[in-house]
């Protein structure tokens, strides 16, 4: 599913017009939801999270690092990545989306998907030290409502 671009498709769907991988001339679709009802992205983000946790941003997979799988998947009773398997590299568009600040700010604005976002971020931080720096910048870019500790 990763190799068929499902992560990109899920996250692009989630971000809508804000998606960084969407072509500039793509038609504007508008935000989903209204004042009464908001779309439920729980399962979408859950699926994306599970896929991301079994992938790597490094093109050579696990070859460069001693431990596998990531700390977020290792303690599970039935780990997503079986022993003896290597993580598959993410595509370029997956990488662009996962390194995009808009993904995390958008997901955390309502505070509904904190668990999924935290798992994704934990995996990405383990993957990439530059992502750690980015996530800190996201933390301080959050609206005041979230800075009160609601999410972090």
């Amino acid at each position, binding site marked *: *599913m*990763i*190799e*068929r*671009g*499902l992560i*990109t*498709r*899920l996250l*692009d*769907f989630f971000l809508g017009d804000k998606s960084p*991988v*969407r*072509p500039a001339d793509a038609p504007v*679709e508008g935000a*989903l*939801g209204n004042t009464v*009802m908001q*779309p*439920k*992205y*729980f*399962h*979408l983000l*859950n*699926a994306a999270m*599970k*896929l991301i946790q*079994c*992938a790597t941003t490094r093109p050579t*997979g*696990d*070859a460069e690092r*001693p*431990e*596998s*799988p990531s700390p977020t998947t*290792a303690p599970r009773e039935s780990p*997503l*990545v*079986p*022993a*003896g*398997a*290597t*993580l*598959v*590299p*993410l*595509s*370029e*568009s*997956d990488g662009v989306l996962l390194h995009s600040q808009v993904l995390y700010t958008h997901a955390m604005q309502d505070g509904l998907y904190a668990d999924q976002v935290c798992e994704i971020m934990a995996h990405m931080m383990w993957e990439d030290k530059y992502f750690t720096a980015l996530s800190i910048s996201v933390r301080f870019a959050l609206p005041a409502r979230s800075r009160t500790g609601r999410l972090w």
Partner: protein
Amino acid sequence: MATPFKDIGASLVALYRKHIPSCKLFLSRLTRHATYIDDLLLCCNSDAVRTTLAELIGTAAAALLPFEEALLLEQQEPSGGAGVVAGGDGGGAGGAGGATVIGRFVDMFTARMPEARKNWPRFNEYFSVFDTLADASFPCRRFVRMGKPGEAAAAVPPP
């Protein structure tokens, strides 16, 4: 209180779990008739119908996967690495998913995303199928390549 439809759905789930050819037939039929997905999983106003269908699909896929694992892995090898183009329709008959029922179903199912956007108040069950598939089986997720024996030993975390 469970609705009669939910009772029927629960019975069907139990039956599908035990009968793999039916799972194959069910997923093949859904793949050929994508309008079932639109009508029953996205447009339908009944929560019970959407939830039951999503559960049925998840059950059928999970039951069928062990029998297609070998084929999925076998076909995965020549493709080699990530080569996904953003925004691809994923609906091609070729590729690793082409010869497996699961692969073709996932391709068709993913291609229903624009329809899901139109039906945003009801798309939770649609995405729950992805969630189930991501859980169901390692080869189905298709994001992990089995390493060669030497790589496998190196990849096992130290105790």
